[in-house]
């Protein structure tokens, strides 16, 4: 499946992805109005020494959050589709927050339900890349097939080992 891939060598920590994420999940497309309506980002840029890494849900294949959710609020439609939260079912127990290995699930501002990256399913349906990826001014974020990427690198490695260019 396609996942959001971050390149820490490129990220300048401008946090534009956070702003774009919040707006993409708000009623209004206007930043000021979205902020007024309490929009929150689902991606966060975290510091790692001199580097910065934008982090959001990995939509794990064997997702611990889905397994642990007592109300089945967290689920996925089929095998590799994004892990989504049904906020109507969520009871805010924070089990998922506890088990997420990446710490990318948080409680909403009202602390009653959780919020997480939905891989911008609405945008994907329109053929658009996730908002964080589309907004990055330096191309530090990509929406890519991890396997394809691995294949490409495997071939490059082979060429390098064989002494070619």
């Amino acid at each position, binding site marked *: 499946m396609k996942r959001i891939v971050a390149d820490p060598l490129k990220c300048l920590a*401008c*946090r*534009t992805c*956070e*702003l*774009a994420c*919040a707006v993409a999940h708000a009623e209004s497309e206007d*930043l*000021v109005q979205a*902020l007024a309506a309490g*929009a*929150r*980002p689902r991606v966060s840029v975290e510091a790692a020494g001199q580097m910065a890494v934008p982090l959001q849900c990995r939509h794990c294949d064997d997702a611990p959050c889905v397994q642990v959710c007592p109300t089945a609020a967290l689920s996925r439609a089929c095998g590799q589709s994004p892990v989504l939260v049904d906020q109507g079912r969520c009871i805010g127990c924070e089990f998922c927050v506890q088990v997420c290995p990446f710490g990318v699930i948080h409680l909403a*501002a009202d602390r009653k339900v959780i919020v997480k990256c939905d891989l911008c399913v609405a945008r994907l349906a329109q053929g658009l890349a996730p908002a964080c990826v589309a*907004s990055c*001014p330096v191309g530090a974020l990509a929406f890519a097939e991890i396997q394809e990427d691995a294949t490409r690198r495997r071939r490059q490695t082979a060429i390098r080992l064989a002494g070619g260019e």
Partner: protein
Amino acid sequence: MEKINHRSADPASREMLVVAGRAGLETAWDRLESQQPQCGFGSLGICCRHCFMGPCRIDPFGGGAQEGICGATAETIVARNLLRNICSGAAAHSDHARDVVHALSLAAAGTSEAYRIRGPRKLRKLAEEYGVAHEGRGDGDVARDVARLLLAEFGRQEGVLVNTRRAPEQQQKNWAAQSAVPRGVDREVVTGMHATNMGGDNDAEHILMVAVRTALADGWGGSMIATDVSDVLFGEPHPLRSRVNLGVLKADEVNIVVHGHEPTLSDVIVAAARDPQLLSEARAQGAKGINLAGICCTANEILMRHGVPIAGNFLQQELAVMTGVVDVMLVDIQCVFPALARLQGCFHTKVISTSAKARFPGAVHIEFHEEQALEIAKKIVRAAIENFPRRDPAKINIPKQEEPLVAGFTTEVIFEMLGGRYRPSFRPLNDAIQTGRLRGVAGVVGCNNPKMTQDASHLAMVQELIRNDVLVVQTGCSAIACAKRSLLSPEAAAKSAGRGLDEICRAVGIPPVLHVGSCVDNSRILTACAEMVKEGGIGDSFDKLPVAGAAPEWMSEKAIAIGMYFVASGIFVVIGQSLPVQGSRRVVELLTNDFEKSFGATWAFEPDPIRAAHLMIDHIDRKRAEVGLPPPMYPVPYPAKTAEALAAAS
């Protein structure tokens, strides 16, 4: 085509954008695209780069940092950034003013062949105001003393700016109550920079009052001095006819386009372009003559006084070069794209930079010094003549659009136009407002901004205003935008104005939209309002007058300074995109609400030009009612639309 139509409402610009697209040439609109997404922290004003513990920014979502490293909150950071913007805007207008006063000193000394006193009446008026004895003294003598006193206004260390006395008593009281009376012009900019230095002023409300004082030092100081002295030096403008848009460029003449802001060189270029020796040199190169045209406010300066045609406004600077017939683009300072110099790689146009304050890598630099003005001007004209044969015929595309316009209106001209030469007076204007034939007056000014369809907001707003019997006064690129749509011609009254405004325009023979000059000439709007107050009957202070201001397509820091001095002078101002202050509710509240108590006026942000026009009309109607003026004489040609009604309908 849809994309191009979205970029500009001007047919000539659209035509040139097609040319640019075909040739693969980049414009500001393309660069705007490559700048997407633009930084939200910057546009909200919550990024601070004032010290290097930082850069810091505030998390607008509330989850992360709510203070910078020093502890500055969003409201402090937002207010400080706005003050810095205003320092820069005020500095630009005022430094321009300083150069004009310097030229006045040269004219006074009689040592310059380029400068002499062409506005003696205005000189005498300034002498009266500044306490210079002038009876029985020659212009040169008087000018020397006036220039010395005006120069002292920049570095004034004690007292307050002399021009602030031109404001009604109420405005002066309002400023005094907020400790916002401007002292020296330079001083306010320096104090503003000091206050925003690390560890300085961090009370948002107080910072905004410093911003007000800095802006007032521009409007009633730098800008007003620039206007007054330009009138003394280059002559007081009088209504005159000219033409506008890229069609004014000529295929068979040497074209020199002046671009930037300062009249000190461009005015002398006008003389040089008429020099018989240079004209014969031009003919020797196969040109039929020397055609001078302008872009932005240096164009407005020489349009107002010499009727020199205008090639276009801010977003047309690159498009003008792309016509392939501009032999020299002479730039001085302010609003000049660095990208211009790079266009020389594709066109024969020579970009010549002239200001000691602004260099453009790749451009030929012929530095301008007032002392050798005419000599330098001739050198530049000669460079254009020599460049004329280098045109590439395959690259010539001149749009045909060229509209007639009338410009040259000033506070003094309004006296004469309305009152007559023998009994100059503002009475007829005030009468028209009192009877309701004229609903009010609106200033629509400011820039182009590629974020908005070029000219579209200016046109929609101005047409809506005049349709509702609001007389519109304009400066800068906004005036050029409306001129391109023929709104600055007397015929526009019958076509586009409401019945009341049309009657006045017919009786007096003026357009419904009056061009009052360059962006420093926004100060003319202040002096005109002061005369309206003095004439009486429609409110005894600015904040009571049925007037309003707008800058629908603004982009420059100068526009922020202008907006702030109008608001602080009691005039409601609505601008298109918001100021970069939305990161602090408190600052937004102060500007759009609390300022009413301090200054009798507020800012408003409204990107929809029709809604913005209605905010202005509603404001004008409210002011009319408060002063006890009757409702507009003629029922409006459509059911009164308010912003709310429009919102409800949509």
